């Protein structure tokens, strides 16, 4: 639908009537708060940070041009690699798991059982809680001695790790937390699921396809554009993960504490960037970090979109 309207507009751009031009200007005038905001707060800072990434800038004195030195320093910095590794872990392990779980939840919520609306609400509820609050809540849930999670594990006779303090378990803790909030993704899947024509399932059933076959051949292809969308949004989100680590790893305002938790296992890219910028006052260096992150995210998104043609099916194609 979107495609056709855009095409229509493009066709008619050359031949605007007086009246149409009127409305375009009027429309632009109404959109001007956003346009100005976009220019002032997005476009300008965007190119500003590109310039700053080539300088030494401490906020107080004017930026000093240093060329590519910041980038050279970054690639020699242990903390850069450590934070990148942690962030990749979250992006490539946490995001697919969360996606799979929210699809599972969506499918459960798609059953027509009594009181389904209540279940839907309950699953969505964690998503409206601010991250700070849910992070604090999870420090309780994950308490090794009296936390709910370990209580359950002990009942099952499994090991009960020191979730937030043992470097091996800190990132899995965050994955657990993100699963808890997967209701938002489930809701989007649910909407998409309900848009899948019932006839497909009925036809498949008539042909004798089992549940698993129907899932792979109908549900997944039908949802693939939504999966792609959620995957990209999830990855972008994962690359910017900050709050959870800042809360759980005991961020201190005075800067003396080491952000990033035990053995820096929660030192994520954004956490490192924040510390370089606002604690160490290395704005140029931090801008360079931001640009590297931007390029990484851009590349990953590009690759995903390029390869998506093989597995994403748009209806009607």
């Amino acid at each position: 639908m979107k495609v056709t309207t855009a095409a229509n507009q493009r066709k008619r751009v050359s031949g605007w009537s007086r009246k149409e031009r009127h409305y375009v200007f009027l429309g632009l005038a109404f959109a001007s708060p956003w346009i100005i905001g976009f220019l002032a707060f997005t476009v300008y800072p965007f190119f500003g940070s590109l310039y700053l990434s080539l300088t030494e800038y401490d906020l107080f004195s004017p930026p000093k041009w240093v060329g590519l030195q910041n980038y050279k320093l970054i690639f020699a910095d242990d903390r850069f690699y450590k934070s990148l590794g942690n962030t990749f872990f979250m992006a490539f392990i946490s995001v697919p798991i969360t996606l799979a779980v929210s699809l599972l939840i969506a499918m459960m919520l798609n059953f027509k059982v009594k009181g389904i609306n209540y279940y839907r609400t309950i699953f969505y509820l964690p998503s409206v809680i601010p991250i700070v609050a849910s992070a604090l809540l999870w420090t309780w849930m994950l308490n090794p001695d009296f936390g709910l999670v370990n209580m359950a594990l002990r009942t099952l006779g499994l090991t009960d790790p020191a979730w937030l303090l043992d470097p091996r378990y800190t990132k899995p803790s965050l994955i657990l937390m993100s699963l808890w909030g997967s209701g938002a993704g489930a809701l989007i899947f649910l909407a998409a699921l309900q848009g899948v024509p019932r006839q497909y399932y009925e036809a498949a059933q008539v042909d004798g396809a089992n549940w698993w076959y129907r899932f792979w051949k109908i549900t997944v292809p039908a949802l693939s554009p939504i999966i792609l969308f959620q995957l990209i949004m999830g990855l972008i989100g994962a690359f910017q993960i900050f709050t959870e680590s800042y809360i759980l790893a005991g961020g201190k305002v005075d800067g003396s504490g080491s952000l990033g938790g035990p053995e820096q296992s929660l030192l994520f890219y954004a956490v490192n960037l924040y510390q370089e910028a606002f604690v160490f006052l290395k704005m140029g260096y931090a801008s360079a970090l931001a640009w590297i992150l931007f390029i990484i995210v851009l590349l990953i998104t590009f690759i995903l979109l390029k390869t998506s043609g093989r597995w994403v099916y748009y209806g009607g194609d």
Partner: protein
Amino acid sequence: MSKKKHWIWSLILLFSIATGCSGGNAPQSGSDGDKPSDTPPAQDAVTLDFWYGWTGPEAEALERLIAKWNSANPDIQVKGLSQSDYQKQLTAITGGNPPDIASQFGQNVVPWGLRGAMMPLDDYITKDGLDLKDFVPAALSTSQHEGKTYAIPTAMHVSMLFYNKDILQEAGYDGPPETISELKEYIKKLSIVEDGGRLQRLGLWPGMDAYTFSYAFNGSFYDEATQQVTPDHPGIQSAIKLSKEIWDQYSSDNLDRFSSGLGQYMSAQNPFFSGKYAMTIDGEWLPTFIKQYAPDLNYGIAPIPYDENNPEFKNSGNVTTSVFYIPKGVKNPEASWKFIKWMTEPEQMAEFTAALGNLPTRNSAFSNPLYEDVPGFKEFLDYSGSENLKSFPASSYANEYMTEFSAQYDAILRGTVSMEEGLDKVKAKIQPLVK
């Protein structure tokens, strides 16, 4: 409607937005003037904005002092704002609209001061004849770099050894450990380890303040003569070895499990209050907390144990401070200075720090009777006179240095890097920052 009218409307819209955006640059005093205040300021009165990081009862204590100043100085009215987000100061200063006076942590003074965010106060100090010799040297040194003073320390913190008298008595000790080897022995005896390694009680948390103990071994983080950072100084190595030795007795696994089961610091479940730690190294504010959260705790305060091979470094300690400073770009630095000077006079300093249970930074404030009501103050007061109190060397890269050091300290304790390797990493990373 004609086309012209449309254009006019869009222009109006544009302008209103453009001016709305730049509103942030308008001088703040303009908006301050609109608000009616209780006491009408005198004609030509200046209003100073004062941002401080304290909140709650501590902020109230500060507000009482501000009120006292305001009633005595109708020409300079101070407006306090509790602003514990210190990042706001950065943005305000860079935005060219800073508060007239602000508080900060001592370790940020030199990094900020050298970069020009804080005004050097030396001219004012000389002009008013402020006696810097009255200040505790380690406290003052946090605000100074190469002969320049960027802030006035108003409160200082130092750690001592707290011990649970009941637990020590049960174990057959009638006093706290005095030397490092006694400390090790105490920790072993006071810790309770279940079968399988689970900890019930710790003599002392082994990941203790490496700075304090480094000074006990005469460690130093910077060598002035060669201009080298020295995280691998033998004194620092001794302190890390001490922690590591205790740490390894219990293993990371058991310590992690134990510590994640411990209660909040500011609560009755604080592990020292609840008897999970037999001893702890903590600051002068702790007695005030104990009074509040665990009034029945039978505890004592003792000096940091000293190295028996180096008795001359007895009573060591690491000093950190809270300071007041004048940000770069204020309109009336003269007035800001007058207020800072008054706030750090012995009387006001005593009133403020006594309310917080913090230590004053001026020797002449120590004798103030206000402190008699502060629990545990006497021990800390005596300790403050120790010559072996030191502070982390103030430099533009102090925050990077401390961050890298504590990250490596953690890794060394957990055994992911060897001590030599970890400290070499600190040095390799920080030395290039020395200019």
